[in-house]
């Protein structure tokens, strides 16, 4: 894949007004059903990503010296890592793959439902649907393949979610005064970049996201073994043990 063609999103909380047009646009394009929610004392809803919620706005409150609070609106979704932990760990060939634009996409038909990608993801993104298949943001890979902008970026009224060639976007952000973007170099460079004004932890993000060691181990040592003779299912159970340890299956949602 040529790096010059890699596409990315830049998410700018400074420009986000928390209107959640993106949250609805995503659901509309991907025809995702709604969850029956209740108000839990916050406007943030649903409280977490679900198999039917690929993108949501987190409403982060941090202390402020001049105002009652500092209120940050941050889109949470797949980061489309270049070095994608989910893809590395996935034992099912072709279930998680990268498009020519650098999108980490997936093929539900090929997913075997092992949930290893959940363990492989440093950002806790993949969810499993009612048929036990992976579900997450795929950057509207179907739209992108047709030369269209992802639904979230298309609908965003302020430019808080912008989309384009990754190199150009980075250059523009640098020119706009963002010396370093979140995800610029992490995990081989993320496809979802964040223009943060402050430390990532202020926005509720990990400072140094990394793929869990166990996944690296699998990728380097065990996965090649699998190709040599172990069947997918055997490999998966073995890996499952490596990734989660024994009897933890129940806890994985």
């Amino acid at each position, binding site marked *: 894949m040529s790096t010059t063609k890699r596409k990315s999103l830049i998410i700018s909380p400074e420009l986000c*007004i928390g209107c959640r047009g993106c949250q609805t646009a995503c659901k509309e394009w991907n025809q995702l059903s709604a969850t029956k929610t209740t108000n839990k004392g916050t406007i943030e809803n649903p409280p977490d990503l679900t198999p039917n919620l690929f993108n949501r706005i987190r409403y982060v409150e941090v202390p402020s010296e001049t105002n009652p609070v500092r209120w940050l609106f941050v889109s949470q979704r797949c980061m489309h890592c270049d070095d994608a932990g989910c893809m590395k760990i996935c034992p099912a060939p072709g279930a998680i793959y990268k498009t020519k634009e650098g999108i980490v996409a997936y093929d539900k038909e090929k997913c075997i439902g092992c949930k290893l990608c959940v363990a492989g993801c440093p950002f806790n993104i993949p969810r499993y649907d009612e048929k036990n298949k992976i579900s997450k943001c795929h950057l509207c890979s179907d739209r992108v393949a047709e030369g269209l902008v992802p639904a979230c970026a298309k609908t965003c009224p302020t430019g808080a979610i912008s989309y384009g060639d990754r190199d150009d976007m980075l250059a523009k952000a640098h020119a706009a005064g963002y010396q370093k973007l979140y995800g610029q170099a992490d995990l081989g460079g993320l496809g979802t970049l964040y223009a943060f004004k402050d430390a990532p932890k202020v926005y509720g993000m990990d400072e140094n996201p990394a793929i869990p060691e166990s996944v690296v181990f699998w990728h380097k040592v065990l996965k090649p073994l699998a190709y040599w003779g172990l069947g997918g299912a055997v490999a998966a159970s073995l890996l499952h043990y490596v990734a989660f340890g024994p009897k933890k299956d129940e806890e994985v949602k």
Partner: protein
Amino acid sequence: MTNNWIDIKNSDVILVMGANPAENHPISMKWVLRAKEKGAKLIVVDPRFTRTAAKADIYAPMRSGTDIAFLGGMIKYILDNHLYFKDYVVNYTNAPFLVNPDFKGPGELKGLFSGYDEKTRKYDKKTWSYQMDEKGIPKKDPSLKDPNCVFQLLKKHYSRYKLDTVSSITGTPKEKLLEVYKTYASTGKPNRAGTELYAMGWTQHTVGTQNIRAMSVIQLLLGNMGMAGGGINALRGESNVQGSTDHGLLFHILPGYLPAPTASVVDLKTYIEKLTPKTKDPKSVNWWGNRPKYITSYLKAIYGNNATKDNDFGYAWLPKLDEGMNASWLMLFDQMFKGKLEGFFAWGQNPACSGANAGKVRKALAKLKWMVNVNLFDNETGSFWRAPGTNPAEIQTEVFMLPAASSVEKEGSITNSSRLAQWRTRAIPPIGESKPDSEIMNELYFRVKKLYKTKGSKFTAPIMNLTWNYGEKDKEGKIKAVDVHRIAKEINGYYLEDLFDNKVTPPKQLGKKGELCASFVTLQADGTTSCGNWIYSQSYTQKEDKVINMMARRKKTDTTGLGLYPEWAWAWPVNRRIIYNRASVDPQGRPWDPKRAVIKWNPNKLDPKTKKPAPGWDGDVPDGPAPPMADEKGKYPFIMRADGMGAIFGPGLADGPLPEHYEALECPLQENIMSKQRINPTIKLFYDKGKGSPEDIFISCDIRFPFVATTYRVSEHWQTGVLTRHQPWQLEMMPQQFVEISEELAKEKGIKSGEKVKVKSARGEVWAIAMVTKRFKPFKVAGSTVHQVGLPWCFGWQYPEDGSGGDSANLLTPTIGDANTMIPETKAFMVNVEKA
């Protein structure tokens, strides 16, 4: 809007007060943020730290209903520190006008202006007048020193709005007030522009009109009216509410803001004599002096050939208001509640949830004989008879549901806040039995006409004489399908005869019989032109044989660089993108700020056709073609005002020529800190000292209802939620009625975030989920702590069907309106919050 949405990007300081654009007008924030990227400052003044406040450079909390105190303090700050734009104030406003020496203000009269009559709760405005010279023109003191000049009266009036006093009323900390004042007043220089964005947070108060007036005074003092990046900008709450207001939605105006006639205005001659503003000042354009042309052309448009000179162009067929009659929202529902109305069309609305004091509204609906609910979906209004707590057997109202087509299922124009009329095409045909509104009206018209014909009635002429040339007719003369282009053309107007300018020799032909009018400039008062709405004349026009729908234009050229896009659709009037733009230049016609020149006088301009010298204006369409004010033939900039000047002194309003702080009808204070007069003395009280219906009760300064409350919308729902509560994706984000309360109040009441609570007012009660938040903070008012809470009005009992959404916050709001407009005061009232 005086300006337009895109123009917000040209601003140096944006004051958002009485609005929450990030949540209610999200697209506008694009332009706010573009301005910020260029270094503009965003100020948000709001009782609550909103999603807009989250983007602000300065956020100032302010108790609901105290905007005039806040802005009065700013006026004082501007005057005390000489931060006003003197050349602008002297030349373009009524600041130098000399007022009647008998005029007295609230500082002298315990909160009242001179002329108040306690019995009628009205002012005799005799003293709110100007001293006239021998020609009948207001006397002026350009030095602004005469103690009776408007400028000095302004100074005197606002000298009472001291920082301590203002802070004590508003609950805004003094340092925040100063920070806002200093930042906003920085736009008083010719090369700086400040804009104000407001919405229902300003209008829905008993002092709503005066809130906006106070800001108008500031904008005139700072020279921000007419400027790119300036102006006063009403963010309209519905996509076409500007259009519907333009076309006579309100009871007191006909299309194009022509006054609705009253009973004493017996004929067209009287209408013209009585209601046409006059001036004796040759430098004043007094555009409303053209009113005779507009009313006559309007009558010709609606009555066609039936309107003749001999029958007064059918003026007698226009409905007349009784003298002093107010037919606004609150009055309509009051009359309905009293059983005075037989039938009601609820057309594209949901008053059972949107109406102030919705409990009374729901009871009022039960007094009707019949109701027609025209909407996309059934709603709480159409189903009021089966609401929880009602017994359908006891309700005799017959309800009809007429399904309406949605905006994508019909063609037509839509006018946004920028006064921009944009043509929309139909995306899909209407679903099921639903019809576009125009088709429903077509059916109604012909059926009513048929009934009149066969059965007769007392006064059939207004219907029988209407023109209705909106499409092909069937055998019975009925229009088969409404062609909205024909409506748009009727609105634009036609030449009914060949029209000549006889002032030149030989007479120049202005228009050909049967052709569409070029603009309102060619409209006539003798019945030779028709025009459904003069401000829309030029929107659907004709050049030679070519008919052009100006509203359908989509060219993206922007020659000024200001984002005016003059060839994108069409803005009223005459495609002017920034109104009052003659005030953006000095008296010689040079832009105050050459870097954002809206218009500029060009003495070397050539006529594009003849290439002969034809001095004129470059840039936006100017407010009239006259040369700049300093020229011998020059004119004053504010052409819609009879005196041509921006009104710092505004004697036309019911409650005073200068805005004065009064408390909301329901407030937490026993006394107004500013004066002895607690509430606006001119508001109509529906309930007073135990008199009136119990539904209209209000309880102020009472321990039972100790907290200030306000209502609002959320970005996830649209108005009462009729369009969004059926939408699971929207409900997923915003599922239930909530009340935002401060952490301090929650602690006091033992309320936890996420638990159900009851919110009660003197009129009703709703349950809500407590949203305990740092975004509301207690206010320090008059030395004590005042808590404020807020809740949205987008929910209703009918949807979601399991009742999990709750009901409208309007069950709590009072029956009281602004003194001028009667817009209900739903943004400041008193409640209690208790654990459910």
